[in-house]
Each structure stands twice: as C-alpha cells, then as structure tokens.
C-alpha cells in the first residue's frame, strides 16, 4: 500500500494537472468564439463562390474549358491536401484526420492510383511520416491555428495550381475538419480540382451567362481565386474545429482530474485512519501487557 507521503504527492500532481487543463480549456473557449465567428462569417462567401463554380462547371464544354475546371481528362495521380493541427491535446481532432487520410490513401492505392500528400499542420504530418513520408510533396506548419490569413491560403492555392499545371497530379482533394458546433467536428473531403459539379442550373436552367471579359479570360482569373477561397474557408473551419475539440477535450480532462482527486483523497483518508488505528492498538496492547 502506498504511503501517506506518496498519496499526498500524487494528489498534488493531479491538482496541478487539473489547473493546467482548466486554463487550457478557458483559453480555447475564448479563442473559439473568435474563430467560430470567422468561420461562420466566411461561409457565405465560400458558398457563393462554390455556387458560381458549380454553375460554370455544369455548363462548361469539356473540350474547350480550362483544365482547372473540368480536369485534364486523367485521374492517375491524386493529391491529397491534409489539414490537421500544429498542436496536440485536442481529443480526436488529429486522430480522425489521420485515420481518414490513411483510409483514403489505401483506397486510392488499391485502385492503382499514385497518391501524393501535401500536409498542412504538424500533427498528422508527424503521425503519417513513417508510413507515407516518401509520398509527401510538402509539409507546412504555422498557417492554420488561431489566426488564418487569406494571403497564406492564396499562397497554398498557388502551390496547388502550379503543381496541377506542371502535371504533378490530376485530381486534388482536401481533407479537413469542418466545424459543426462546439462539441462536433466532421471530417470532410472536398475536391478542389477538377471543380465539383453541383446540381446547378436548376433555377435558371437554359439561361446562358454573358461573360465580361470573354469566358476564357474570366475563367483564367477566376479559377485560381476560387481554389484559394476554398482553401481559406477550409482553414477557417479547421481552426474553429481545432479550438472546439481542444475545449471539449480539456473540459473532460479537468473533470477526470477532479474525479481522480476525489478517489485519491478517499484512499488518503482511509490510509491515515488505518495508521491511527494501528498506533492506538499498539499503545493499548502495550499498556495491557504491563
């Protein structure tokens, strides 16, 4: 049985752990509010952009439209852009991204495709490096998290676009956590290239858009922007989801620490009581023996 001193030390160490987790929860909650606002405020823009692109893709003529929109006709090499967090201690956040990536890579490789990975965020990159390190084309850190800059998303979009134009890959899909609410995140796969064709054209089917400037010119300036927008919105969602996951995880940890302190205190008191009883018995039997 553990001595009183050991128990005391353990209780104190759990107490300081609890203080840390409680503080981390508080920090995550405060940052979450801002990140959530940013993610929700960014949704209309991304949604409208997606609407426009779905419309365009649905109407595009496969032979003449730019490859970014309709693809280059092949699907042998896939690029997965994996968005995870730079920091841990956020529950299943990074784990679910890692798992999804592993499944997706296995599925694509099973179909005989070549897969390349572009890792955003340190955690999943580290977790998968041993298995898939040889198919990483880049691993980026520090662009998501508490504040996401549009410029970073634009740079990443540019990397993806130039990679596509150099023929490094044919299809590009992004894997990230979407923020649903403070306790739920959803792993989403969004195809960036070629653009996903929505069920567009429903409302004003048959109406042909006028373009200003000419269609090709307009698409050439528009498509890179759309890719950046989608990446930006994914990064915003991911950072809100990360903070939400961290808040929930730290809340649980704080509660568990509380439970553990209760249990340890009970054991501590019992042990102390047993020691006192023991001493009393020794004194009494000593006195009786005289």
């Amino acid at each position, binding site marked *: 049985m553990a001595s009183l001193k050991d128990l005391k030390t353990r209780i104190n160490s759990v107490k300081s752990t609890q203080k840390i987790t409680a503080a981390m929860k508080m920090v995550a909650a405060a940052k979450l509010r801002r990140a959530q606002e940013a993610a929700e405020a960014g949704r209309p823009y991304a949604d*409208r952009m997606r609407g*426009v692109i779905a419309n365009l893709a649905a109407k595009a003529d496969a032979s003449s439209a730019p490859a970014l929109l309709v693809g280059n006709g092949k699907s042998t090499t896939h690029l997965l852009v994996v968005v995870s967090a730079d920091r841990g201690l956020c529950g299943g956040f990074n784990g679910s991204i890692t798992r999804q990536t592993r499944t997706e890579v296995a599925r694509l490789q099973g179909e005989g495709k070549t897969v390349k990975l572009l890792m955003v965020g340190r955690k999943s990159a580290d977790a998968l490096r041993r298995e898939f390190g040889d198919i990483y084309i880049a691993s980026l850190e520090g662009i998501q998290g508490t504040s996401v800059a*549009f410029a970073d998303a634009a740079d990443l979009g540019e990397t993806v676009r130039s990679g596509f134009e150099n023929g490094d890959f044919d299809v590009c899909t992004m894997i990230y956590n979407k923020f649903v609410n403070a306790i739920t995140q959803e792993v989403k796969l969004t195809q960036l290239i070629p653009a996903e064709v929505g069920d567009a054209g429903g409302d004003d089917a048959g109406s042909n*858009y006028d*373009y200003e400037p000419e269609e090709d010119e307009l698409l050439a300036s528009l498509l890179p922007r759309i890719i950046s927008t989608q990446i930006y919105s994914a990064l915003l969602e991911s950072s809100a989801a990360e903070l939400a996951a961290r808040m929930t995880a730290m809340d649980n940890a704080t509660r568990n620490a509380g439970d553990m302190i209760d249990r340890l205190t009970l054991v501590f008191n019992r042990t102390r009581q047993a020691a006192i009883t023991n001493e009393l018995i020794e004194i009494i039997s000593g006195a009786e023996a005289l």
Partner: protein
Amino acid sequence: MAETTQLELVTPARIMAQKSVQMVVAPGVEGLFGVLPRHAPLLADLTRGIVEVHEDGKVTDRFMIDGGLADVSGESVTILAERAIDLGSADAATLKEKAANANEAEAAFLNAVIEAL
C-alpha cells in the same frame, strides 16, 4: 414601389450588404456597368473601384472594392470581393493608420479608398 433587384455584397470576412435596390453600378474590368432589375444573366470580373447602390433615384451607398466578381441574374446581383469598405462609414484617419501597418496590396487598396473619400 418600383421594381427592385436583390443586392448582396460579400467578402470572406462578412456580408457587407444585403438588400433590395433599384440599381447597382459596378466597376467591371471593361468599364462601369449598371445593373437594373431583369438584367440578363452576367458573370463579370470586377476591378478596383466603387460600387454604387441606387435607391429611389439617389445613390444611397458607396462601397470601394478591390476587384472581385459579380454574378448577375434577373432578380439578384451578388458581388464577391476579397476586400471591401463602406465609404459612408469610413474615416480617412483610421484608414491611414491601418494602411501604415498593412502589407503592400492592402495598403494600396486603403490608399485608394482614402483618395476616393
């Protein structure tokens, strides 16, 4: 009540404006164009310039945008801009301060806004 079209001005950060208006004038890359209700569907690239909102025959709002995209249909105008500032509520002094701290592209836009004020 005259016929109206539904205007939406959206940036990555928020929805700047959302209302029924009589006419919108937007800065296309090939020149300014006005959009009235029942305009033919149009997808236009926008350049840096001022979006004017007309209601009751008067200009009611002016927004400076830093390029973007206008998606026009018969009953709505959606303007997607990476940066936009409401000229009605902007103030040159605070913008100048922001421009001093901003990166190159942002500062160029803010200076254009200050000039337009």
